[in-house]
């Protein structure tokens, strides 16, 4: 096999097997730290050996066996820790602790995901831990993604592992009764990763961080494969796919944000759009049988309406507004109200929309999109002066480089 072939095999194995190896080892040794280190060593060994020995016929099994051996080596080396590990192993495998019924959701990786996204951990910690343990990203990669110091990220993960152990955060899939709330916690982590990629902030960063959006989609696909019946998982995946489909059309060659209405729709990724639409149709069929959709499903449906229009003028705005009305009932947040107002502007005109947006002033005065929306509505109404002031405020608050470039041009075009 060529060098490139081996490298590709290793990358593929890392994508496909990392979480499985970490999960299996955590189950066996009852310790995330040992599992993580042994998995990392096993992959390092693969990088060393596979180019000479060839890629094993079953890379996953090879990696698990190698990682198991590394873990046992470490435990033997740290003789003092040995007793504790035995004890931990006994506790974790204790037959007196009732295990959840086996079924479709019995995948080791799910235990790992639910543990990393446990509500007793802070949100930023959940994100870092999930990207490390489930996604297999390195600490420097995670630190770069969130523009924090490596040492901060490293400490965050180390503390989380220590808390999981000391407080005995269980390594299991939550009971059916707790599952919806816990799944929603996992999805919040993945959505945060996706959004950080999609709306990347910071002067030195690319406007869209494809590595992060791709990782979020990959992990959401994994959850989807593990929990195929969950409507919100399908909804979030559809939402991400329909958003990702527009990625290349969303930033111009000069690095400026291109709003939805001005995008070259031919540049959208047709395969991602089709996959997203399939998922949305699946959820619409479920909704027709009386299953109320959650917020990700509604957001996905809104995106499906937009991506179904070949031309922005074909957009079914009344459908968009109806979906926002549904979303407002579920999530009466000012940000949802702001986005609803954008649909209102298309249906009832910018004046009606502006009145609705102005009512959000006390809640959204610090949010750049509030000022950008106002600036656009004021511009359409011919209030040049007020529009300019609103663009100024939006530019001051925006963090995304492409968005700043777009807002600046719009402002300067006011004349």
């Amino acid at each position, binding site marked *: 096999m060529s060098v490139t072939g081996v490298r590709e095999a290793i990358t593929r194995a890392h994508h496909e097997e990392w979480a499985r190896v970490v999960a299996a080892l955590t189950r066996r040794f009852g310790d995330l730290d040992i599992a993580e280190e042994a998995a990392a060593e096993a992959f390092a060994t693969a990088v060393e050996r596979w180019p000479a020995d060839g890629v094993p016929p079953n890379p996953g099994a090879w990696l698990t066996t190698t990682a198991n051996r590394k873990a046992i080596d470490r435990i033997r080396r740290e003789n003092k820790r040995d007793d504790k590990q035995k004890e931990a192993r006994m506790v974790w495998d204790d037959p007196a*602790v009732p295990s959840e019924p086996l079924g479709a959701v019995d995948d080791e990786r799910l235990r790992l995901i639910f543990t990393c996204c446990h509500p*007793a951990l802070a949100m930023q910690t959940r994100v870092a831990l999930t990207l490390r343990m489930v996604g297999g990203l390195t600490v420097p990669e995670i630190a770069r993604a969130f523009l924090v110091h490596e040492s901060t990220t490293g400490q965050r993960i180390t503390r989380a592992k220590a808390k999981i152990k*000391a*407080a*005995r*955060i*269980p390594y299991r899939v*939550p009971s059916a009764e*707790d599952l919806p709330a816990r799944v929603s916690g996992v999805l919040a982590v993945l959505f945060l990763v996706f959004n950080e990629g999609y709306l990347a902030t910071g002067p030195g960063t690319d406007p869209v961080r494809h590595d992060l959006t791709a990782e979020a989609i990959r992990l959401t696909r994994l959850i989807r494969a593990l929990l195929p019946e969950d409507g919100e998982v399908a909804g979030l995946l559809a939402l991400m796919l329909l958003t990702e489909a527009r990625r290349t059309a969303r930033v111009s060659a000069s690095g400026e944000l291109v709003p939805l209405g001005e995008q070259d729709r031919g540049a959208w990724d047709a395969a991602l759009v089709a996959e997203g639409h399939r998922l949305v149709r699946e959820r619409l069929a479920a909704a027709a049988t009386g299953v109320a959709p959650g917020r990700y499903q509604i957001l996905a449906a809104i995106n499906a309406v937009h991506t179904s229009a070949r031309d922005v003028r074909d957009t079914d705005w009344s459908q968009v507004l109806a979906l926002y009305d549904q979303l407002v009932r579920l999530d009466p947040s000012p940000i949802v109200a702001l986005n609803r107002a954008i649909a209102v502007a298309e249906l009832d005109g910018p004046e009606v929309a502006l009145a609705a947006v102005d009512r959000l002033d006390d809640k959204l005065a610090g949010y750049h999109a509030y000022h950008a929306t106002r600036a656009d509505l004021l511009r359409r109404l011919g209030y040049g002066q007020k529009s300019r002031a609103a663009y100024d405020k939006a530019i001051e608050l925006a963090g995304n480089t492409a968005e700043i470039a777009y807002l600046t041009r719009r402002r300067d075009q006011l004349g």
Partner: protein
Amino acid sequence: MQYLVSVIDDKSNPGRTDRRPAISAFNDRLIAEGYWVFAGGLADTDAATVIDNRGEEAVFSDGPFVESKEYLAGVWVWEAPDLDVALELAAEASKVCDRKIEVRPFLGE
């Protein structure tokens, strides 16, 4: 696994004072289900005395070791198989006591 379960009250926004019967009933349940190890309500922080005998002689000071708006109003020690079980009980305890609850594991040996 044992957890120290602290009931936290807030001087500027104290919890209701009529919780005793509900707490007794909750304690009975904790005992019946095998979680109960210890429970005790605490007297006002004004009744606390801090002793520091690390120097030449013991120094006594009147009042709690830290003055704060929030203070410890009572404690439990629970035996629970894992944090999820402890957190579920703590969520109930917070309702029963009408106060915030902190769950903290004891050090393993």
